[in-house]
């Protein structure tokens, strides 16, 4: 048994050495960003190409977030409405997380020295982003991935091994993939991509299915907000969310992003996206309170938490599911955001 254990440990040691060497290998950035080009995440490649062709963002308002941002803010419309020199750019990516937003912001601000006029950081209306995006290890540098361990990334080992995999993939991709689907390449002058419409009855079905979970989530946020002694159930739930779902790490990454923008004097606000459940329950304020309570390093007199409170978002006809807007919903949201950003334009 001892011999067996020794031999296994020796092999684990050797494998660790090999994968560590593969982990630190640095391939050209263009290689990493070419990978998502023909996938559902092709917006990443689009962003990289867009930024490569951009000299400055001094008069550009940039939106960063997940699919709710990607499919919710129509930057084409914003640019057509705003007749001033201000430009708008949607950098939302499907299924993204704050860890990805943070590494993209670091690249934007520190590597490329592109300092937007304003950054709008987008939040889901019912919960924090959790886990970690599949392509985090693709867009993050190896030192950023190592840093994520110090920041409490519970999925550090998969993130580490994914980076190793993407590096090995530079050799093995010659046989691993069939030609990707050209139809998946995101081609647009703007960063917005509308969701496909879905029948309202279907959306109502999704709403019914997810309502209980969202309500439980809101209840836990409310209970947490009350302070005082927390029940064991709530403590277990919060521990699960923080550690097993990696939310604590996502919070840290969001704080890093806010701190980075503060450091470079870049203006930013936080937008809370419409959610069908919270809108119907009239609990849009919950996430706004949560943000203010949680991210105490942010100066809220300078940075607004934009809460979307509009009857349109109680209507399933504007959604494709409880979080994602259809083109009509996106237009309404874009209009509201535009008016919030440009109060004088209301009249």
């Amino acid at each position, binding site marked *: *048994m001892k*011999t*067996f254990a020794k*031999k*296994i440990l020796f*092999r684990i040691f*050797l*494998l660790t050495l*090999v*994968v560590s060497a*593969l982990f630190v290998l640095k391939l050209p950035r263009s290689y990493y960003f070419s990978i998502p080009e023909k996938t559902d995440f092709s917006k990443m490649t689009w962003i990289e190409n867009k930024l490569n062709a951009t000299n400055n963002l001094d008069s550009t308002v940039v939106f960063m977030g997940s699919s709710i941002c990607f499919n919710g803010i129509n930057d084409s419309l914003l640019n057509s409405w705003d007749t001033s020199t201000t430009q708008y750019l949607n950098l939302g990516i499907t299924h993204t997380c704050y860890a990805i937003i943070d590494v993209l912001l670091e690249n934007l601000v520190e590597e490329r020295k592109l300092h937007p006029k304003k950054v709008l950081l987008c939040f889901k209306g019912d919960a924090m982003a959790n886990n970690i995006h599949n392509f985090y*290890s693709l867009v993050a540098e190896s030192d950023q991935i190592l840093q994520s361990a110090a920041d409490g990334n519970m999925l550090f080992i*998969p993130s580490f*091994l*994914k980076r*190793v*995999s*993407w590096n*090995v*993939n530079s050799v*093995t991709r*010659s*046989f*691993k*993939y*069939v*030609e990707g689907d050209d139809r998946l390449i995101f081609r647009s002058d703007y960063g917005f991509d509308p969701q496909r419409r879905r029948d309202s009855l279907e959306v109502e079905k999704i709403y019914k299915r997810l309502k209980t979970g969202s309500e439980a989530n809101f209840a836990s946020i409310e209970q947490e907000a009350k302070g005082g002694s927390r029940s064991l159930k709530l403590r277990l739930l919060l521990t699960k969310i923080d550690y097993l779902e990696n939310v604590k790490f996502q919070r840290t990454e969001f704080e890093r992003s806010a701190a980075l923008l503060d450091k470079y004097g870049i203006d930013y606000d936080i937008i809370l996206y419409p959610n069908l459940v919270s809108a119907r329950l009239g609990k849009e304020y919950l996430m706004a309170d949560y943000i203010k309570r949680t991210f105490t390093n942010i100066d809220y007199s300078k940075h607004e938490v934009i809460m979307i409170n509009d009857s349109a978002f109680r209507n399933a006809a504007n959604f494709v599911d409880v979080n994602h807007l259809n083109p009509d919903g996106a237009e309404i949201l874009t209009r509201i955001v535009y008016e919030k950003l440009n109060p004088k334009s209301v009249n």
Partner: protein
Amino acid sequence: MLFNSPEFLVFLIIVFIAYWIILKDRHRLQSTLLLVSSCIFYMFFIPKYIFILFITILIDYFAGMKIATSEGRKRKVYLIVSIISTCMVLFVFKYYDFFVSNVNSISSLVGWNYSVDVMKIILPIGLSFHTFQSLSYVIEVYRRKQEPEKDFLIYSLYVMYFPQLVAGPIERASNLLHQFHEKKKFHFKLAAEGMHQILWGMFKKVVIADTCAAYANHAFSSHDTLSGFSLIIGAVAFAFQIYGDFSGYSDIALGTSKLFGVRLMRNFNLPYFATNIAEFWRRWHISLSTWFRDYVYFPLGGSRVDGWKLYRNVFVIFVLSGIWHGANWTFVMWGLIHSVFYSFYVLIYKPHKKSKAILAEKKSSRLSDITGGVITFAIVTFAWVFFRAANVNEAFAYIADIFTQPFLGQDAKSFLRLGILIIPFLLLEWFNRYSSEGVIFSSYNIKPSVRLAIELVLAVLIIDCFYTLDHEQFIYFQF
């Protein structure tokens, strides 16, 4: 919990340590640990389904005892009750909806106003495997080839043993039960062999099967837009996907079991090197083929009957084998195709008329072996199209597109790249053909440093494909 998941790795380490270190030399507790671990493993899928498994275990455990202690008609009654009740569970969960939807279709065709609702129940994982394993036990007891297992814990472990619980091999009581009774001593060689087999199985699943899946999925989902050549490669990709997937699973199962000192039967023996269809079936899913041979084919008379009965027997076992895989006409078609080609083989060679010695003496040249191998692989791959397609019409459309689409197109180059993976894999399998139970390089006297290097390369490739490809669930888990 899938074998290729990090959860399984953690689970296996915990059970292994508890088994050999904490419960060392405490045989009864070791068996209890294996049973408890098997329950946990099973409950990772749909926890409540463990009660179904428990009921079948209970029925067959008592049926085995009753059969052994009864005589005459009573014995038969107990056997029939046991078989019907075990098969009833399988029918309800696996075949009821298929049966009802076909009855509904027929009734609407003939104009009857008759319709029964389907149940849409999720199939308990591995149901067909442990059902067949339980059936084999009661039949063997009935045939007096197996003593009934009196120890309920050991019998439960026989049905539930987690390495082979969800996708086989379908073990025989005579091979497994006595191993659970034996006191276990840790054998370095067996455990090391197990680790190598797990590594090789993971390679086959994660690198070979999941890569081939990308090609096969693309071909089967877009067959109307691809060239004929790409569609042929797409079908070949599925042939290697299902082989890598299922034989990879079996290797992991056998390897995992060896870590606990239990040897399971070999389930695959390089099937794609078979030189004829009969040989293919002696090499593919051996535990199922031998099950049908022993409990269906031989009782029907096997190859010793003359005339049409021989072809009937071939037809029955292949159609049953198709239905065993799933409640879909695609599987029935798959079985039918094999029965046709097998019958053709029987017609040519008439193995029941010639003695085995004559067949053994039949000189085969390397060229005829290669030709036979290529033809057999083509037949098997053709049949896989039906196995993979969503329905029979899709399968025919896929085959029609091979001949009607332009043979070469822009996409062909992309599909051809699969050869970079498949050809070295086939060469590895060929060089590995004399290894014991297919354990990689076990028959070669390779320098330890070279062996270590191979292990590291395989491990890195597994990590690479695990994180950069879509994970396909083990295909045979659905059966």
